[in-house]
């Protein structure tokens, strides 16, 4: 469970596909395979209406793709990276009709971006099922240069664009799918604490 005092800090549940949805689109990043299997495996009628967009992650079980293929989904799109998966997802949502349900599982970094794509296509964020699995890595936006740095596992972290050392806050933008990063040594330049890994 990921808990925080900050209200914008996202929380995740578990995938629970609605039997009434006429189509399921499921975005999976590597380790999310377990969450997907738990909610969908063995349900032939459901899988027959399911389109999966998948991208691997370093922390996924070694036979993930084989397991996914064996499940018998209606359509499976494998993308080499999160970026290409998101383009594919946007393409699917652009032509989808009401009754389509979006589910997302993977790292925080991934969930945030996939949910933002869903919202940009008019799906209310409460209607998107999310389940966190695998890495606690975050996507961070530097408030100074506005650049995004992905796969951030600790704070402070150097901004991948302007190089400032950023304190990663729990403040989260759903629209951007990113946490806020603020310069940590603005008052006392060079006074940078040792980085700490995110633990939930």
């Amino acid at each position, binding site marked *: 469970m990921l808990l925080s005092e900050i209200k914008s800090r996202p929380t995740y549940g578990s995938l629970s596909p*609605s039997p*009434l*949805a*006429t189509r399921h689109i499921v975005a999976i990043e590597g380790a999310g395979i377990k969450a997907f299997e738990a909610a969908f495996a063995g349900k032939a009628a459901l899988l027959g209406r399911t389109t999966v967009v998948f991208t691997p992650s370093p922390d996924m079980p070694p036979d993930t793709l084989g397991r996914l293929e064996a499940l018998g989904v209606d359509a499976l799109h494998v993308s080499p990276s999160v970026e290409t998966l998101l383009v594919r997802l946007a393409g699917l*949502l652009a032509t*989808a*009709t*009401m*009754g*389509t*349900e979006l589910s997302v599982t993977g790292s925080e970094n991934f969930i945030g971006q996939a949910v933002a794509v869903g*919202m940009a*296509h*008019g*799906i*209310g964020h*409460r*209607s998107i099922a999310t389940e966190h699995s695998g890495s606690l890595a975050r996507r961070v936006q530097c408030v100074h240069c506005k650049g995004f740095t992905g796969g951030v596992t600790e704070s402070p972290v150097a901004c991948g664009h302007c190089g400032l050392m950023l304190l990663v806050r729990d403040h989260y933008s759903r629209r951007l799918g990113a946490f806020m990063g603020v310069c940590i040594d603005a008052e006392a330049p060079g006074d940078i604490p040792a980085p700490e890994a995110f633990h939930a």
Partner: protein
Amino acid sequence: MSGGEDFRVRVVEAENVTPTIRRLRMLRCDGGALPPYAAGAHTVLTLETGGPKLRNAYSLLGSTLSGGAYEIAVLRTEASRGGSAFIHAAVGVGTELTLSTPVNLFPVHHLARRHVLVAGGIGITPIAAMAAELSAMNAPFELHYAVRDEALGAFAGDLALRHGAKLRLYVSRRQERLAVREILQHQPLGTHLYVCGPERMIEAVLGDARAAGWPEDSLHAERFLAPAGGEPFAVRLARSGLMATVGEHQSLLEAIEAAGVDAPYLCRGGACGQCETTVVAADGSLRHHDHFLSDAEKAAGDKIMICVSRLEGRELVLDL
């Protein structure tokens, strides 16, 4: 106590749009501006009928974001407690009334990518305002309007002129039926549905949408219920120590107001939740009529929506 300010207004136009629907246009008596509102908002009119004061909620027609005159359309109903009959018989140009600051419990959802509007009968009033607002914003929408016969379809001609092919009219006298499932079938992702009309129609439309996999946050309905009548009973207000009798055609809220206690409300129709009141004791059984409390809360019996619900029994004690 609706939260906002009340305004004295004078009726400047009164017209029977159909034999059963009367349109009123109102301006402030002191010449000041009425507050702006967005489509879907309603106002509560206080009617001095000679008998007990009646307060009824009416949807505002055509949104005036600039804050101009207010317009409402009132259906004369057989089951009315006198409010609609009073407006039809006794309210005309020059009549002065009191109305509340508008409240919007049925707003257009601006993040939606498309809007499907469904109205039945007099339910067209907020829906027509939404259509006008969406049309002004050039947002994609379609409007489905079901009426018994064309003469009763207030505004049908006007709506057809304004919205052309976006309007679909269903006249039940001509055996035309609103086919909700077909309407819902090919709507693009990100569509929102809004429905206003008779209770049975709202339930049917929402039921079909849920069955077609539409998520709750894409569904919007406006239903104002008239307070249900019933046998008179006594109400005791534990905090203020007041007693009152709730008459046969009176709501709990009206009886409490008549006793001089300013209880909170917004919709007076069982929809908003504002008037939720804690039940201290009930000698009899609660008759819940609202759409706000969950079934479990209704069964628990420790809360009541005083605008529409009542007691069947002798005495109700409220935490007021």
